[in-house]
């Protein structure tokens, strides 16, 4: 089964997600699409982190005999997964705030095209 998710494949997946996210943020003017792209960037990072965590775990877990050191190594090696959880929560918060700002922007300008909002300039 390990061959199914080799690090290479996962990294390509993550790189693709990241690139799509960056491209989306840069190229689109619709705030909702931009929000989706931003989320995609974070998802890409999540994927990478989970991969790293798994790799480190397989490297670092070997040879622990006692329960105590095993547990410590377990948590230490799974830092990446904890990080992922945190990023997910933060991403949710970000979406919430983003949608709120979107609503505010729509109310004041009747448009969610970000380039239309250019009152502040020079």
């Amino acid at each position, binding site marked *: 089964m390990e061959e199914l998710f080799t690090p290479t494949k996962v990294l390509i997946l*993550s790189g693709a997600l990241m690139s799509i996210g960056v*491209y989306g943020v840069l*190229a689109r003017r619709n705030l909702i699409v931009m929000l989706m792209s931003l989320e995609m960037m974070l998802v890409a990072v999540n994927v990478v982190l989970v991969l790293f965590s798994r790799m480190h775990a397989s490297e670092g877990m070997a040879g622990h005999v006692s329960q105590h050191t095993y547990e410590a190594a377990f948590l230490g090696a799974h830092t990446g997964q904890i990080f992922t*959880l945190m990023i997910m929560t933060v991403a949710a918060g970000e979406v*919430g705030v983003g*949608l709120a700002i*979107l609503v505010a922007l729509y109310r004041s300008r009747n448009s969610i095209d970000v380039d239309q909002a250019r009152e502040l300039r020079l």
Partner: protein
Amino acid sequence: MTDRVLNLVIFAGVLCVVAGGAAAVGSLFGPARRGKTKESPYECGSPILNETRKKFDVRFFMLAMIFILFDIETVLLIPYAVQYERFGVAGLVIAGIFFLGLVESLIYAWKKGALDWK
């Protein structure tokens, strides 16, 4: 970790750069004829007969937002819940403070009428 992996990571980084660079070059130097049509869901040029989707009520957004937030925050409570014995009184207090924040936000949303569907 092997060097192969590392190269892939670099590849991923380069990918970002290329994506960004291409988009940047394209939009900076390419002809920019943007308009409503270009930004519409179907950019092939055929005129849209009518809206393909109903506009969502903004109240839906609001509710969805609140749902997502409360939904996701429980992610942080579950790890505590499965291990609560280990953290004793201190953990209880800390989790309580966190929970206090959640409850406060719920009351806030409620009081402000964000949960009403009128």
